[in-house]
Structure formats: C-alpha cells, structure tokens
C-alpha cells in the first residue's frame, strides 16, 4: 500500500483514459492511499447488481411521474434486482413483518425524494406485513423520530444531484442526518462519508437503496447550488442493495450529462471521491463499473450509460 498522495501529474499520466472529473479511475487506486481490497477487480469475482429503470411518462409539478408509474418502476426494479417475479415475495426477502422500518428520504427544497417514491416504498413495506405505525419517513428529523430510533430496517431513498462540497449528493451521503453535527464529516470534501454507515443507528440495517433520477441536477450555481437550467428530465430510478454501486452508476450518468451539455470533461465542482473511497478505503460497496452488473429496464432514449 502506498501513502503517496495523488497529484495532477498522476492524472496527466492517464489523461487519455481517465478524465480529471471522476477521480474514479481504477488506474489511480494504487496511489490513493487505500488498501484497494474491494476495488481490486477480478474476473472471477461476483458482480454487484444495479437496476436502472426509466419511464417516458410526463413528470408532475413535484418532479415525479404519476404515482402508479412510480410504483410500477419501483416494482420492476425490485423484481429485477432480486430475481423474483412476485413483487410481494420479493419484498418479503427484504423486510420482515416484525421489522421497524425507517425510510430515509431527502427533503432538499429544490429536488426532494418525492412523495410518489416515499408512498410506493411504504406501500410495499406494509404489504410485507409491517404495521403502518412501525414505518417512519423522515430526513432531517431522523435522530428525534421514534420509529427511526427503534428501527431494525432502513430504506435509503434520495435524488442524485451535484453538490457544492461533496461533488454529488449521494446515497452514501444521505445518512449524514444520523449525526448531530453533519459538518464533522465535511473534511477533505466529504472523503469519508462512508463511515456514517458504521454508526449504530444504521449499521447493517439498510435493505434497499433507491437513487431517484427523475430530475437530476448536473451542475450548480450560487449559495443554493441550484438553477433550473442544470436540471433535466431523466425519469429514472436506480435501485440496488449496494449504495456505492448505485451511486457510482448515478455519477456516471451525471458526468455523461455534463459532457453532453458542456461539450467537455468539465470536472464536477469538488471531486466526488467519497464514492470511490467508500469502496477502496471503507469497503462499504463496489464503485468500479467493471464489477457492477447494470440491468437496464424501460425507456432507453437519452439513457447516457
């Protein structure tokens, strides 16, 4: 293992193969200071499944497709993810009737998780046998929410967007509300966000990750890091058991959109290295596309991946 820091010159060496933007180039893993155990791809290793589902239906004023379309998208994705045709059976492999389930959402003013996604998840959790009063939906109040305090299972659902400090707002980052002082995790532009997943409040509890890609934000401006100009109707959901693999897949779409929009490999504002480090340093999941089995369902136009 090398502790040498990555410099610009490392990128220059591999410039033709790896744009600066990602800081995810496998060629650089050895220089990252990480052990690389989880990132060292081997042909015989089992791949992590990620499902991308899209639907061309028009989006409503809240930024989501109609509720019945969202339910269908989610169901199709979960079936494909788990290889189970019966949606009820599929959910019963994720959630037990005795579980207390927290659905961790994201309430960002401009692009929230959306009610449609929250209710689609809640419906299936209830059908898996969990009483409604044992299901909580929350973002900023999770530490005070009695359901989350007693939770035995979590479902992590949030939109992906470019982010002023962490590069992208990700599923990995979505658990930052489980700490009283989120800024404590801002060091080195949020490099070690994956350590959130070792907190007692969340460790081992996450049964499903849903990265909402209905209207991703691929670039931001100003203190609020938002402008409608940099949002597009992608109309997708990315679903996986592995938050890192889902985030790495969403990031590829964001970067592809940036390349299409700007006409060059413009780096994200702040490197989203917390995704790669979640793999190589913290072993939370898989970030290397070569180790991800991407299943694509539904609408293909403008898929970007």
């Amino acid at each position: 293992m090398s502790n040498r820091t990555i410099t610009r010159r490392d990128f220059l060496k591999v410039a033709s193969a790896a744009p600066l933007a990602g800081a995810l180039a496998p060629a650089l893993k050895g220089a990252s200071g990480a052990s690389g155990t989880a990132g060292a791809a081997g042909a015989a290793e089992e791949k992590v499944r990620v499902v991308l589902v899209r639907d061309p239906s028009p989006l409503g004023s809240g930024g989501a497709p109609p509720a019945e379309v969202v339910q269908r998208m989610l169901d199709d994705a979960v079936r494909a993810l788990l290889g189970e045709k019966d949606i009820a059976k599929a959910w019963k492999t994720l959630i037990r009737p005795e579980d207390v389930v927290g659905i961790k959402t994201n309430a960002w003013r401009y692009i929230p998780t959306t009610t449609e996604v929250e209710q689609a998840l809640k419906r299936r959790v209830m059908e898996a046998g969990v009483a409604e009063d044992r299901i909580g939906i929350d973002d900023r109040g999770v530490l005070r929410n009695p359901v989350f305090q007693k939770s035995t299972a979590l479902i992590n659902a949030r939109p992906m967007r470019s982010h002023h400090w962490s590069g992208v707002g990700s599923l990995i980052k979505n658990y930052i509300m489980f700490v009283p002082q989120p800024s404590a995790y801002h060091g080195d532009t949020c490099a070690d966000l994956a350590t959130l997943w070792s907190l007692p409040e969340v460790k081992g509890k996450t049964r499903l990750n849903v990265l909402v890609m209905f209207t991703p934000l691929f670039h931001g401006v100003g203190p609020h890091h938002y402008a409608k100009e940099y949002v597009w109707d992608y109309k997708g959901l990315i679903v996986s058991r592995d938050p890192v693999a889902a985030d790495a897949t969403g990031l590829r779409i964001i970067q592809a959109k940036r390349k299409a929009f700007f006409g060059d490999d413009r780096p994200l504002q702040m490197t989203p290295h917390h995704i790669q480090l979640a793999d190589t340093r913290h072993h939370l999941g898989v970030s290397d596309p070569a180790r991800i089995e991407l299943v694509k369902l539904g609408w293909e136009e403008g898929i970007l991946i």
Partner: protein
Amino acid sequence: MSQPKAPGARVLASYIPTAAGPWLSEADQVFDAETIFDYIDGAGEVYRSYNMKLLVARRFHKDGKPDIVVDAFDMGSSEDAFGVFTHDLDGEDAAVGQGSTYKAGLLSFWKDRYFLSVYAEEETAETKGLVLELGRAIAAAIPGDGPKPGLLKLLPPEGLEAGRVRFFHNHSVLNYHFFVAGADILLLEQRAGAVLAEYAGSGSARSRFLVVEYADPGQAARAGASFAGAYMPEAGGKAEVKTENGKWTAVRIRGRHIAIVFDEETEGKAGKRLDAFEALLAETAEGRKER
C-alpha cells in the same frame, strides 16, 4: 418581516430593500459560520473557508411567481468578499458593486466586506430585471468600497486573463479551480492566502500561476519542500520540471511567498513569469524591506 437581533445583522439587513417590485419580503433568517449548514448544507463550507461572519437571507415572494432570494454575507474583510466572489466567475458582467456576474437567474457581486447573491428560483425576463434592480439597490446602499487582496499585485500583467483570478485559503478550493494534489501539499491549512490566475499562451494554450503568501519565511520554505517532494520528486533540487503533458512546472520561493507556474509551454516562459513576479515582489514594501 422580523428584524434581525444581532447588530451586524441589522446593519447588513438595512442594505436590502423590503420589496422588489410587487414581490414582498418574508422574515429574515440570520446565520453564522456554525449555523450556515442549517440553511445551505455543505455549500456552507465554501463560505466558511473564506472566514464568513454573518449571513442575512431574505426571501421575496409573490403568489404565482418564482421566489427571489437575497443572501447577504458579511465576510469580515473585503479581501475575503472578493475571494468568495471569485469562487464562481462564470456569467456575464452585470456592472454591480465592485465586481459582478449574472447567469441563470443568479446575480453575484461583492462590495466592501460584503458578498451578495441575488437569485430568482426561475429565470424570466421579469425576474431577471428584478434581480438586477435589487442588486443595484443593495450595492448603492453599502456605503464604501474595499481593497482587493494585495497578492493580486504580484501577478505579472503579460498574458494575464484578468477575469480569471481567484483568491482563497485552502487546498480544497484550489483543487476546485485547478486540481494540484489530493492532499494539502502546499500546506495552505486555511491560514495562507493564495491567488490563482490563468494566463493565455499561443493558440488555446493556458497556463496557471499560483502565488501563496504564508505567515513567515519558515512556513514558506516548509511548504516549498513539501510541494517539491510530492509534485516534482525527480527534479533533484531543480526548480523546474517537464511534466507528462509536455509542459513545464516551475517554482520559486522568496521570503514568505511561493510562486508556481503550471502547464507553461516552455521552460523559458515559465522562468520569465517567475522573474516578473520577483520584480513585482521587490516593489512591495515587504520586498523593499528584504532588499
């Protein structure tokens, strides 16, 4: 609209109009460097990195129309107000305050120790007009101007792209503009002041010029050694190295300053800019003292 209680906030709030055309203002929100995350999440780190003191946020609302938001930051010094303004220089010059840009519904400008963001949640011809009107009114209400960082005087003028100069204090912001290294190999540590400028070369070629000012010469020497070891280890004590893209990086340490040229087309051009920097440094009070 409620009035902010802190004296500094009251002054800052007094610069912001209470209405923007038919849009009426809601209650102000006031944040400091600790509470800013309650308002703008991780983006608060950018403002903290420029030593922000206070933020007064005022939202203007009209039913059926996009909201307009004024975020007024007291940065504590005009140098840091200028610095945080240079964090995002994309957009057209709006001729507001001491420097401004407008793009996609967002007007950013700085004046004296204040940085202002005036933002329409949806850009229309109407909201663009109101955003600019609000900005001009706020700029007119702020009584004085403030100086830019003195480091800017150490930028050689030949080839300098004046609209692409950034001022900052830490390596995350440096990397945001120009990735140098994953770690803080220049030991900026939020205490140094640094200026990064773009220089035009032949055709579309661009080089970067970084000048860092440390607290004392010892710190500059340590930072220089750290940079040389991490970035140009094969240089063997030389101050220049040809990098993998066929361009040149050159470094010079003088007193408590480090100057580095990145991606210059020739070794000669890199050396010439460093010589020009040194000449400018010699003309400063500090340079004259060192002589």
